[in-house]
């Protein structure tokens, strides 16, 4: 009987969650795939809704064939009843209960007021990541958006925020964002990268081992040329200007120590700045489950198991590494979970290909990480008047005062003294900045709940009749 199969709840329908769901469902497990978006795919495969009638959504994507394969397989599994896909479900907590069961608490979107719970024998966390942005004067102006945000609005809503953009920050994400905006008719005035991507080309080991990635880089380079996008390596945006919205940015060259070179500033007129400094993992659900966290990522073993029984994790949540790594980790996690839930011994030989691609992708991203970095002295550019915590409107001056005069030595104490990180976003946006200004390492935030929950829902959660 299908209903007697063990039940795995997969949280997140991006590449990792999809690969995990498909692998688990193919090996005798009933899967409930829970995701906050209206359609599967996650941020990487975010697509326009049906109402927009896009005939060529692949024009805004790469590795579209992979999406077709995943999407078709999901549809077939949903049809067959082996995967249940709960779209528009926003998970706020996963709670272990008696008899080795876990309860997933979600809110039904878009209003996020009505609760839904899912009971499962095991949970697989594939919650993805979000973009890290370091502050600079003017970064709260309308027209300044995260690089990923510009891409999400373009892929999902087929809209752009202006006519002339600067894409800035650091990291491989800036390339598809710049070429995507340019293809969509935005004049991309400059791609401002604080690192020197050529440094990567000087790493023969990384390059020789990853010819496909080299080819991808070359393709992006060609597209930037075709759209006449000027690339400014070892440059940074030092300020965004405008009154009610962005009208220009000032960029400057960085010296070999990551400091702004005096006299190198120049102003570029633009109505859009798409900016990002890397990615951070969503780890809230793992943290509240008590999973061991390694740095800012969920720690997993070779089978993608966390140290909490019945909880697996895959994709960006275990460490930022891109879609190919997410697919590999998801597959392994799904296979491992299926084996352990059905009482068979997991055999890593049966997922050797995924393990090899996981190893290679991790190796590649580790090499990327040594090249792409924000300017070492980015805090020098953050004036005291610059708002650091966007929600609570806490300035850099207030953070510095908390550190220099009131003795705060960590993000948590700064938060208690200034309210930086206490607002709607719960510090997700300002934590890296506050840590940098306070001169300490960013540590896991230990958010008890993964998103805002109405008090009435919280009060009723745990009632037996709640299910």
């Amino acid at each position, binding site marked *: 009987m299908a209903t007697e199969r063990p039940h795995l709840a997969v949280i997140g329908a991006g590449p990792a969650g999809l690969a995990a769901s498909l692998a688990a469902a193919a090996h005798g497990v009933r899967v409930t795939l829970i995701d*906050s978006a*209206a359609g599967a795919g996650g*941020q990487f495969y975010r697509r*326009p*809704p*049906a*109402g*927009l*009638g*896009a*005939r*060529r*959504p692949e*024009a*805004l994507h790469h590795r579209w064939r992979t999406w077709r394969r995943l999407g078709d397989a999901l549809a077939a599994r949903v049809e067959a009843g082996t995967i249940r896909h709960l779209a528009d479900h926003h998970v706020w907590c996963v709670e272990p209960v008696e008899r080795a069961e876990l309860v997933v608490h979600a809110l039904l*979107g*878009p*209003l996020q007021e009505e609760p839904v719970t899912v009971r499962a024998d095991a949970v697989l966390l594939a919650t993805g990541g*979000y*973009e890290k942005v370091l502050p600079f004067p003017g970064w*709260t*102006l*309308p*027209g*300044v*958006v*995260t690089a*990923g*945000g*510009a*891409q*999400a*609005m*373009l892929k*999902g*809503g*087929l*809209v*752009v*925020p*202006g006519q002339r953009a600067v894409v800035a920050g650091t990291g491989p994400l800036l390339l598809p964002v710049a070429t995507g905006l340019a*293809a*969509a*008719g935005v004049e991309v005035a400059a791609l401002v990268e604080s690192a020197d991507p050529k440094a990567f080309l000087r790493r023969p080991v990384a390059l020789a081992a990853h010819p496909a990635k080299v080819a991808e880089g070359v393709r992006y380079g060609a597209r930037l040329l075709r759209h006449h996008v000027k690339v400014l390596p070892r440059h940074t945006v030092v300020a965004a200007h405008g009154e*009610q*919205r962005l009208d220009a940015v000032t960029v400057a060259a960085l010296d070999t120590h990551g400091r702004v070179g005096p006299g190198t500033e120049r102003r570029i007129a633009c109505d859009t700045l798409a900016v990002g400094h890397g990615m951070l993992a969503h780890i809230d659900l793992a943290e509240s489950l008590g999973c061991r966290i390694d740095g800012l990522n969920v720690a997993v073993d070779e089978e993608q198991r966390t140290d909490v029984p019945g909880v697996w994790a895959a994709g960006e949540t275990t460490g930022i590494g891109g879609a190919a790594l997410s697919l590999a980790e998801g597959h392994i996690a799904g296979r491992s979970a299926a084996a352990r839930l059905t009482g068979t011994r997991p055999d890593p030989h049966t997922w050797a290909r995924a393990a090899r691609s996981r190893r290679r992708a991790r190796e590649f991203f580790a090499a990327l990480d040594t090249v792409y970095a924000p300017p070492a002295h980015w805090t020098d550019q953050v004036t005291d008047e610059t708002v650091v915590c*966007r*929600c*609570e*409107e806490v300035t850099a001056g207030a953070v510095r005062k908390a550190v220099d005069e009131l003795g705060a030595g960590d993000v948590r104490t700064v938060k208690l003294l200034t309210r930086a990180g206490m*607002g*709607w*976003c719960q510090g*997700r*946006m300002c934590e890296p900045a506050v840590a940098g200004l306070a001169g300490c390492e960013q540590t896991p935030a230990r958010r008890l709940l993964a998103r805002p929950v109405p008090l009435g829902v919280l009060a009723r959660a745990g009632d037996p009749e709640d299910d």
Partner: protein
Amino acid sequence: MNPLELVGAEPGPAFTVTLDGREITALPGQTVAAALWAAGVTSWRATRGAGRPRGVFCGIGVCFDCLVTVNDRPNQRACLVPVRAGDTIRTQEGTGHGD
């Protein structure tokens, strides 16, 4: 080339919503934020403290900068909420609760 042309979009019939009383055309399936961007609007909130304008920042529901009042319900994330025909969208002042 605009984004709609790029993907060969053939959207369903457009409809009308209002932003602070002004009529705006929206397409089916768009979020409130996408409809406002398409209409050339990039801010629809004034912060609680300094009353500064804000709009989309993260675009994926994480930062809460794009909060807006839709059909008298404040604090909706414009980047997540789908726009519906006849929606009354209002610039959100502060908490959105009139205090």
